[in-house]
C-alpha cells in the first residue's frame, strides 16, 4: 500500500490544487504543493523502514489485475536500485516546488503539473510491468512539455517542440521494443521478468535492445541524441531545469539498467565494448562542447551529457562495483545539478543574464552574490569530482569497476572528468571572480544586485549538504543498494 501512496499522494494533491475553491494566490498554491510533496518525500523515506537492504529481490510487491487482456497489470515493487531513485525524486520535486517562486501565469496548472510529474516518475521507478512503466514514462512527458512551453523563456516554443518530438520518438521506440518482445516471445504477459529474453534469437535480442538503447539514449541523453537537452534547459525555468536534469534524465539511465541490460543480458554483453566506446565518446563530446559554451545554463546542460555518459560506461561493464557507481552517479548528479541549476537561476534573476562574457565578479561581498558564489563553487567542485563530495565517490566506483574490462574507454572518460574541471573553473573564474561588472550605461554607479535572502538558498544548501554527506559517508547509499546492484550485475566478482 505504501508504494501506491507514493503515486496517490501527489496525484490527489494535483487534483486538490485544480479543485481548490476560490482563487488561491500563487503563494498559497505553492505552499500546498510543498506540503503535498513533503508528505510524499516523508512517505518515500518511510520505505526505508520495511525495506530489507540485504535482500536483492523485489520487495513490498503490490499487484492488481488491470487491463489484463493486453497484458497491462498494476504491479509495483521496490528494490535497491529503485529505492534511492524514489527518494531522490521526492527530494528534488520538493526542491523544485520550493524554488517555484512568483509563478504568476496560471499557477494552478503549473503546480498541478509538477505534482503529476512527481507521481509519474515514482510510478516509472516502481512499475514492474513493461506497459505500466511505459504509461508512466509517457505520463511525465506532456506535463514537462507544458512546463517548458508555457512557463519557459523567449525561445520556448522551439525548445518545447523539439523536446516533445524527440522524446516522443524515444517513447515510440521503447513501446515498439516492448511490443516486439511480446510479439517474439508470443506471450502478452508484460510483467518484468529478466528471463524473458533468454529463449530469443540473438538477432531479435539485438534489434529490440537497439530500439530500447536509442529510446533511452535519447532520454539520458547520449551523443548524438542530446541536442534537445541544452535547448530545453535554456528555455525552461529554474525549477523545471532542476526536475529535468535531476529526475527525468534518470528515467533514461534507470531504463538502461533495468530494461536494456536486465532484459537482454546476452546481447548486452556482446555489445558492451561498443557501448563502452559510445560512453567514452559521449563523455568527451559533452565535456568538450561544454567548454565552448558561454551561456551558463547550456554549459551545465552539456555537462549532464558528459556525466550521464559515465552511467553508460558503468552499465557496459556491468560489474557489481560499476553498477553501484552508476547508481551513485545518478543520485549525485541529481543533487549536484540541482545545486548548479538553482545557482544559475539566482544569477539570472538578479543580473538578467547568464552570459559568461558579461558576468564578472559576482562574489563581491557588498554588491554581489557571495553566498550564491560559494554554493556554486561547492557545486562545480562536486561536479568536477573533488573528493569529499558525492561526485568523487561515483566516479571512483565507476572507473574502478570499468577499468579492467574497458581500460581505454575508462581512461578517456577520466580525461572527461578532468575536462569538467576546466569548464566549470572557467565558469567560476569568469562569472564570480574578477571585478563586479558595471552595467552598460551605468558607468559611475555600479549596479547593486538585490540581496538574496538566506531562506531562498535553503534548498541549495540542503542539496549541497546532501552532496557532502554522501561524499563523506558513501555507505549510507551503498549499504542500501549493494545487494540489488550486485544482483543486477552480469559479471560476478573480480575479473583478474
Amino acid at each position, binding site marked *: 500500500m505504501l508504494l501506491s501512496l507514493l503515486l496517490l499522494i501527489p496525484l490527489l494533491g494535483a487534483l486538490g490544487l485544480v479543485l481548490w475553491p476560490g482563487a488561491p494566490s500563487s503563494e498559497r498554491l505553492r505552499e500546498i504543493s510543498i506540503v503535498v510533496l513533503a508528505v510524499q518525500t516523508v512517505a518515500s523515506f518511510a520505505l526505508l523502514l520495511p525495506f530489507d537492504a540485504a535482500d536483492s529481490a523485489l520487495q513490498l510487491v503490490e499487484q492488481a489485475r488491470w487491463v489484463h487482456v493486453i497484458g497491462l497489470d498494476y504491479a509495483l515493487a521496490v528494490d535497491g536500485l529503485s529505492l534511492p531513485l524514489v527518494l531522490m525524486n521526492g527530494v528534488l520535486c520538493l526542491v523544485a516546488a520550493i524554488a517555484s517562486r512568483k509563478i504568476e501565469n496560471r499557477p494552478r496548472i503549473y503546480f498541478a503539473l509538477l505534482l503529476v510529474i512527481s507521481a509519474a516518475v515514482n510510478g516509472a521507478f516502481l512499475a514492474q510491468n513493461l506497459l505500466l512503466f511505459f504509461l508512466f514514462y509517457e505520463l511525465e512527458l506532456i506535463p514537462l512539455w507544458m512546463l517548458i512551453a508555457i512557463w519557459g523563456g523567449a525561445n520556448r516554443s522551439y525548445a518545447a517542440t*523539439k523536446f516533445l*518530438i*524527440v522524446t516522443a520518438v524515444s517513447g515510440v521506440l521503447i513501446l515498439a521494443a516492448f511490443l*516486439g518482445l511480446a*510479439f*517474439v516471445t508470443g506471450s502478452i504477459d508484460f510483467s518484468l521478468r529478466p528471463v524473458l529474453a533468454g529463449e530469443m*534469437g540473438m*538477432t*531479435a535480442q539485438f*534489434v529490440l535492445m537497439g530500439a530500447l538503447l536509442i529510446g533511452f539514449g535519447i532520454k539520458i541523453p547520449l551523443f*548524438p541524441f*542530446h*541536442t*534537445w537537452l541544452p535547448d530545453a534547459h535554456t528555455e525552461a525555468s529554474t525549477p523545471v531545469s532542476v526536475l529535468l536534469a535531476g529526475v527525468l534524465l534518470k528515467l533514461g539511465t534507470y531504463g538502461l539498467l533495468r530494461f536494456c541490460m536486465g532484459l537482454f543480458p546476452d546481447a548486452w554483453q556482446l555489445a558492451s565494448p561498443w557501448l563502452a566506446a559510445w560512453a567514452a565518446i559521449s563523455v568527451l*563530446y559533452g565535456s*568538450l*562542447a561544454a*567548454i*565552448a*559554451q558561454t551561456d551558463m545554463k547550456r554549459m551545465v546542460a552539456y555537462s549532464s551529457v558528459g556525466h550521464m555518459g559515465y552511467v553508460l560506461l558503468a552499465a557496459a561493464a556491468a560489474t*557489481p*562495483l560499476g553498477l*553501484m557507481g552508476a547508481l551513485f552517479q545518478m543520485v549525485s548528479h541529481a543533487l549536484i545539478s540541482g545545486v548548479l541549476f538553482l545557482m544559475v537561476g539566482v544569477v539570472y534573476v538578479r543580473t538578467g543574464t547568464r552570459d559568461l562574457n558579461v558576468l564578472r*565578479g559576482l*562574489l*563581491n*561581498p557588498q554588491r554581489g552574490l*557571495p*553566498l550564491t558564489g560559494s554554493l556554486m*563553487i561547492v557545486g562545480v567542485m562536486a561536479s568536477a569530482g*573533488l*573528493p*569529499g563530495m558525492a561526485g568523487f*565517490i561515483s566516479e*571512483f*566506483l565507476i*572507473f*574502478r569497476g570499468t*577499468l*579492467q574490462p574497458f581500460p581505454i574507454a575508462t*581512461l578517456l572518460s*577520466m*580525461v572527461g*572528468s*578532468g575536462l569538467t*574541471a*576546466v569548464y566549470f*573553473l*572557467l565558469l567560476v*573564474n569568469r562569472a564570480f*571572480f*574578477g*571585478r563586479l561588472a558595471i552595467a552598460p550605461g551605468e558607468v559611475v554607479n555600479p549596479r547593486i544586485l538585490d540581496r538574496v535572502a538566506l531562506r531562498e538558498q535553503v534548498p541549495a544548501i540542503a542539496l549541497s549538504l546532501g552532496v557532502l554527506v554522501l561524499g563523506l559517508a*558513501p*555507505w549510507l547509499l*551503498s549499504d542500501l543498494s549493494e545487494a540489488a*546492484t550486485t544482483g543486477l550485475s552480469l559479471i560476478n*566478482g*573480480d575479473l*583478474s
Partner: protein
Amino acid sequence: MTSELPLPIQTAWLIPLYGFAGMLVSLPWACGAFRRDAHRPAAYLNILLTLVAFAHGSLILQQVIQFGPADLSFPWLNVADLELNISFSLSLTNLVALELITGLSLLSQVYSLGYMDKEWALARFFALLGFFEGAMSGVVLSDSLFQSYFLLEMLTLSTYLLVGFWYAQPLVVTAARDAFLTKRVGDVLLLMGVVALCAYSGVMGFNDLYAWAAQDSLSPLAATLLSLGLIAGPTGKCAQFPMHLWLDEAMEGPNPASILRNSVVVTCGAIVLLKVMPILQLSPIAIGVMLVIGSISAIGGSLVALAQVDIKRTLSYSTTAQLGLVFIAIALQIPVLALLLLFTHAVSKALLSMSIGGVIASTNCQDITELGGLGSRMPATTTAFLVGGAGLVGFLPLGGFLALAQSIELLSVRSVPYMAIFLLTNALTALGLVRVFRHVFMGSSLIKSRRAAEVNWQMALPMVALSVIVLITPLMLLRLESLEGLLAFPLWAAALVVSSGLVGLVVGALLPLSKAWSRSLNPLLRWWQDLLAYDFYTERFYRLTIVNVVASFSRLAYWFDRKVVDGLLNGVARFSLSSADSLKLSVSGQSQSYVLTVLVAIVLFLTSVSWFLT
C-alpha cells in the same frame, strides 16, 4: 581492537579533524553572521585548534619514540570487491612531518594576524588555512594510497581557494585557475594510477601495495604507465617541471599561505611520492623520468630564479629547484636523504618566506629593483632572511649543510653526475639569495623603502621563533638520528658543499647590480635573460600545446553539435513538417482510407519485424 594503545595514539584520527574543525568554526564569521569587522575570534579559534593539533602530535611523537610506531585503521567503504579504509601510520617520519606541518601552520597563522591585519575577510582566510592544514596533516599520516589521493585533491581545492583569496584582482584570477588546472592535470593522472592500482592489486594500503608490487606480476608497459601516473600527481604538487608554473603564479595569493605552500605543501607531495616509491621500482623508465624531471627542475629552477625581479618569485623558483633535488633523492631510492632535504628546506624556506612577507608588508612593493637599504631599518626581517638563507644553502653547522653533505657522501658512491647537480644547484641558490639580499637589504634606500619600518610583533614573533628553530635544526636532527648516522660524511664532502656555497656567495657578491644590467643591451645576453625571466617561455608553451588542443577540440565539438547533429535534426523536422503540409492537401475525409492506411502500415511493420527477427 586498539584498546591496548595509549589514548593519544588511539585518538590520532582527530589530528586532521582539528584543521577541518577550524574551518567549520570559522564559517559563521566568514558567512557574515557577525559584524564584518570583527573576525578576530575566528582567527583565535583556529590558532587554538592548531595548537591543540600540535600538542596532540607531540604527545603521539613522544609515545612513538618510546614504544615504537603504531597503525590505526577504520573501515570506510565496503562495496562489492572494493574495500576502503581510513588508515593512519604513526611512524616517526610521518609524525615529524606532521609536527612540521602543524608547527609551521601555527607560526604562519600567528604571522597572518599581523600580515592580514586590515583584511576584511580574515575569517574566510583562517577557514581556508584550517582546511589546508587538515588536508596536509591527513596526507602525511595517511597509510593508504586512496586516502592520500583524497586529501591531495582537497589540498588542490584549498590551494585554489587560497590563491584566489583576493579574487577581484585579474592576476589572481588567472593564478588561481592555473594553480587548480595544473594540479588537476597531475591529479587526474594520479587518479588513473590509483584506480589502476586499486583494480589490479585490489588493495589500497601502502604495505599491501608493497607486498603486491614485490610479486611483480604486471607487464612492463602497464607498470610504466602506472608509475608515470603515480609520479604525475606529486610532480604537480611539488611544482616540478613541466608543471611548476602554478607555484610561481600562486604568489599572487596572500603571503601567509605562500609560506605554507613553499614549505609544507610541496613536502606533502614529496612524501606521497616517497610512500609510493617501492611501487615505482616496477618501472625503470619511471625512475628515469623522475631523474630527468628532478634534474631539469633543480638546474632550471635555480637559473630562472636568478632572472626574476619579483621577490616572491625568486623564492618560488628556488622551491622548485630544491624539490628537484628531493625528486632525485627519491628516484635514487635514498629516502633518508629525501626526508632530510625536505625537513631542512621546509623550515628554511618558511623563514625566508616570512622575511620577504615582512618586506612586502612594510613597503607594499615586490620588485627587488625598487627596494634597497632595508637592512638597517628592519633588523628582525633581515636576520630572518640571513638565517633562512644560511639554513638553505649549507652554511656550516646548519641543517642544509648536514643534508647536503649527506647527499654528497651518498651520491658519490652511486652517481657522480647527480652529485654535480646538487653542488651546482646549491651554488646557484646561494647566488640567487645573495643577489636578492643585496638588492633588498643592502645599498641605499630607494623611494619605496625609505620609510619602511620593522614589522609588527605578530609577524616578528613567528619570524624570531622560526629563526631559532632553523638554528637548532641540527640539534633536533641529532635527537632523531644518531650522531654517527648524521655526521657520517667525510671531510671532502663537507668541503665541497661549503665551497659550492662560497662560490655562489662570491659570485653573487661581485655581480654588478646596476639597473642597466637588469635588462642588457647586448642581444645575446638579453636573449638569455628573457629566456630565464619568462621561465623558458613555459606559459607560452602551455598555451600553444595543451590549452590550444583543448580549445580547438571544444570549438570543433560545438561546431559539429550545431551544424551537423542539430542541423540534421532540424532538417528532419523541417522535412516532416513540409511533407505534412503537402499531405494535408490529399486528405479526403473518408475514414475508410485512413483505416486502410493504418492497416497497410501495421502489416508492413509487422512483416518487416518478423523478417528481421526470424
